[in-house]
């Protein structure tokens, strides 16, 4: 049985249709990525899955007893609220200190236990959020642009961590991401969203779909080339030719 099954979901917000007739399914151990332009309803879809907004049609079915680990896009902790990393990890109750240590280790930031959350750097903070999501041994991780605010090296290593987590624990991953070439190389399936599902399938299928090209331009074909290149030949892609271009369209130069 699928972990999460979204059927014919529609959402209206202030009388404006945000999502219409969306179908989505996530199976155990899968990495599924949602891409789409700003305002395409990605975050609303996540909120509907979490149950924090009302849906106007269709339904979201979760496997009974499903444990969700959620990593929000941004978490603002009010400066008046003192909280250590350890206390933050223990929010859900029954967690001992060694479990906290293990979760921090898995997220790649050991030794932060006694730090105040307000003193963490952006990268440390996102990893602590990941550790918190992992601590309950979730069946599925929901990541909402979890690498926002990280530099390219930081987000690359964040995604490697995610892949490790999947490989080690077998937990499924549903994520929203803007970083197209990461998406293309790390996902089993990609869903392209723009108020509705434009196209969906393996990265290769999505990247060559005309709907996807209409949204992201043909330039992202380069990202796909990079992906194929990576996977067919196992080349080391850590060399520093123009990867620091901010826009995926630049990848066409490859």
């Amino acid at each position, binding site marked *: 049985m699928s972990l999460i099954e979204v059927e014919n979901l529609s959402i209206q917000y202030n009388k404006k249709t945000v999502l219409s007739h969306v179908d989505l399914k996530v199976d155990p151990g899968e990495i599924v990525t949602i891409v789409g332009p700003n305002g395409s309803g990605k975050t609303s879809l*996540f*909120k509907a899955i*979490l*149950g*924090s907004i009302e849906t106007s049609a269709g339904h979201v079915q979760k496997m009974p007893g499903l444990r*969700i*680990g*959620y990593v*929000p896009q941004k*978490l*603002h*902790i*009010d400066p*008046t*609220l*003192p*909280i*250590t990393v350890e*206390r*933050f990890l223990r*929010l*859900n*109750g029954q967690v001992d200190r060694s479990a906290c240590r293990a979760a921090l280790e898995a997220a790649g930031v050991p030794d932060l236990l006694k730090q*105040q959350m307000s*003193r963490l750097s952006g990268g440390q903070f996102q990893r602590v959020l990941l550790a918190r999501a992992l601590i309950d041994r979730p069946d599925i991780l*929901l990541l909402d642009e979890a690498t926002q605010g990280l530099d390219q090296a930081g987000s690359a290593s964040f995604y490697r961590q995610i892949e490790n987590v999947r490989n080690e624990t077998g937990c499924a991953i549903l994520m929203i991401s803007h970083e197209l070439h990461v998406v293309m190389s790390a996902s089993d399936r990609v869903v392209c969203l723009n108020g509705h599902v434009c196209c969906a399938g393996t990265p290769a299928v999505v990247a060559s779909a005309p709907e996807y090209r209409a949204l992201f331009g043909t330039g992202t074909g380069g990202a796909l080339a990079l992906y194929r290149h990576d996977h067919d030949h196992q080349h080391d892609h850590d060399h520093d030719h123009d990867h620091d271009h901010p826009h995926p369209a630049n990848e066409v130069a490859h």
Partner: protein
Amino acid sequence: MLDDFMTRATLAGIGVAIAAAPLGCFVVWRRMAYFGDATAHAAILGVALSLAFQTSIFIGTVAIALVMATTVTLLSGRGYAMDTILGVLAHSSLAFGLVAVSFLSGVRIDLMAYLFGDILAVSRVDLAVIWGGAIVVVGLIAWRWSALLTSTLNEELAFAAGLNPRREQLILTLSLAITVAVAIKVVGVLLIAAMLIIPAAAARGLSRTPEAMAVIAAVIGVFSAVVGLRGAYVFDTPAGPSIVCVAAVLFALFGVLGSARGSKSI
């Protein structure tokens, strides 16, 4: 022991301080300071209505505080900023309350007692109401502590953990209504928000965890109540405001200490 008015006053102050401390922390963390103020100001309308209908003042104020909270929730997200909504509601309910009180001919009520509290006139029954209310509030917050904390940090995080932040919000609203109702006698409607916010704010610089902040706020609140009352007795100053003054001085003191410590350890 309870025959002495100072003893009763001190116990009343301690009761309110203990209820207000953990609730006050959430008021500070969730930026509900104005919300607390609005609820407290609305209570004067509750007082007027209870006197008019000859029901208990406790029930009247709790009811009006809940109506107030619901109204705020309904009006929010309709094109006005939150502080505007609260400003309108807080002051208009205070005004309507004062006007309503003036219609109550035949009943002579001491308005000042409700605006600024009348802690020295606390009876045994009042004391029972105050401590009963305080125990309910502390019990509610302790029971939902983790859920409240998670909802305060992030709504989606709470939903992902299977909690309902709206229910937690309701718990806070209810606690606030009860606290306002029991604190009227002690500090009066104009200074209730001070008892919520000042001890919690003073505790911030001294705390590393949310739990520590709640406990330290309670200690600060109790200390302020005891010392403030003593001061009021010795210097013949109004009791409620004296308690708030002590809390404010502690806030300034710990604020300076806290920021000195904070800048060193960064």
